[in-house]
C-alpha cells in the first residue's frame, strides 16, 4: 500500500514537511485476480475419505459374544441380544447415528450396534474410526 498525498516544502524552503494525508490507497474495483480464496481439502484428503475406516461390531477380541440392545456385551444366545459379527464403515455408522439403519439390519438390531459403537473407548478396535467421526467439522 503506497502513501497518498503530496509532499510540501516548508515556508523557509529546503526541508520537506511530511504530507498531511497519509491514508492508504484502496481499490474497490476487481483487480487482476480473485480477492477471495476458499480453502478446499487437498486431493489427498478428498480421495481418501476418513469415512472408509472400519468399525467391527463387536471387536475381534470379543468375537463370539452378543450385543445387547443397550450396546453392552452379553454371552452368545442371550435372549433379545444380537449376534454381531459385522463390520461397518465409518460412513455407514455416521448415517446410522443420524437416524438411518445400519445396512442389513432392522431398527432394533441397528440401535443395539450403534449403542455398542457409542460405548467404544480407547483400546477397542474401531475406536479411532469412531472418534474421527466425532471431530467437529
Amino acid at each position, binding site marked *: *500500500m503506497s502513501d*497518498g*498525498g503530496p509532499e510540501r516544502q516548508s515556508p523557509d524552503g529546503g526541508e520537506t514537511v511530511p504530507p498531511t*494525508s497519509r*491514508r*492508504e*490507497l*484502496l*481499490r*474497490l*474495483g*476487481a*483487480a487482476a485476480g480473485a*480477492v*477471495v*480464496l*476458499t*480453502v478446499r481439502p487437498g486431493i489427498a484428503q478428498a480421495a481418501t475419505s476418513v469415512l472408509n475406516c472400519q468399525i467391527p461390531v463387536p471387536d475381534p477380541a470379543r468375537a463370539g459374544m452378543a450385543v445387547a440392545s443397550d450396546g453392552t456385551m452379553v454371552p452368545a444366545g442371550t435372549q433379545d441380544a444380537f449376534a454381531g459379527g459385522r463390520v461397518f464403515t465409518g460412513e455407514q455408522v455416521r448415517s446410522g447415528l443420524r437416524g438411518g439403519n445400519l445396512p442389513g439390519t432392522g431398527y432394533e438390531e441397528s440401535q443395539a450396534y450403534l449403542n455398542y459403537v457409542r460405548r467404544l473407548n480407547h483400546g477397542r478396535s474401531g475406536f479411532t474410526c469412531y472418534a474421527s467421526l466425532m471431530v*467437529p*467439522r
Partner: protein
Amino acid sequence: MPDAIYRAEPPEALVRTSLGAIDALYHRRSGTTHLVAAPMPQILEALAEGPADPSLLWQRLSARFDLADDADAALPALRERLAELEALGLVRREPGGAS
C-alpha cells in the same frame, strides 16, 4: 430501487487473523477457511462499525482510505464486492431497502 443494507456477521461467527497483505478468515458455522485480499478486509472492518448500505459504506471507506477508483466506478464496484462477500456467507443482507 433502494440499495440493500448489509450487516457484518456477529463477531463470534468469524475468526479473523491478518497474514500481512491478506486476512485469513475462519467461518465457525461452516468450518470453512477463506483468504481475503484488499479491499475485502477493509470492507469487513468498515461494516463492523454497524449495518450500512453501499453508499454509507463508501463514505466510511473514503474517510479512511484514498480510493483509487473513479468516482462513478467506486459504488458499482463496492456493490459487486458486497455481493461476493454475501455469497460466501461473510456478510448478510438485511431485508428491505435503505431507510
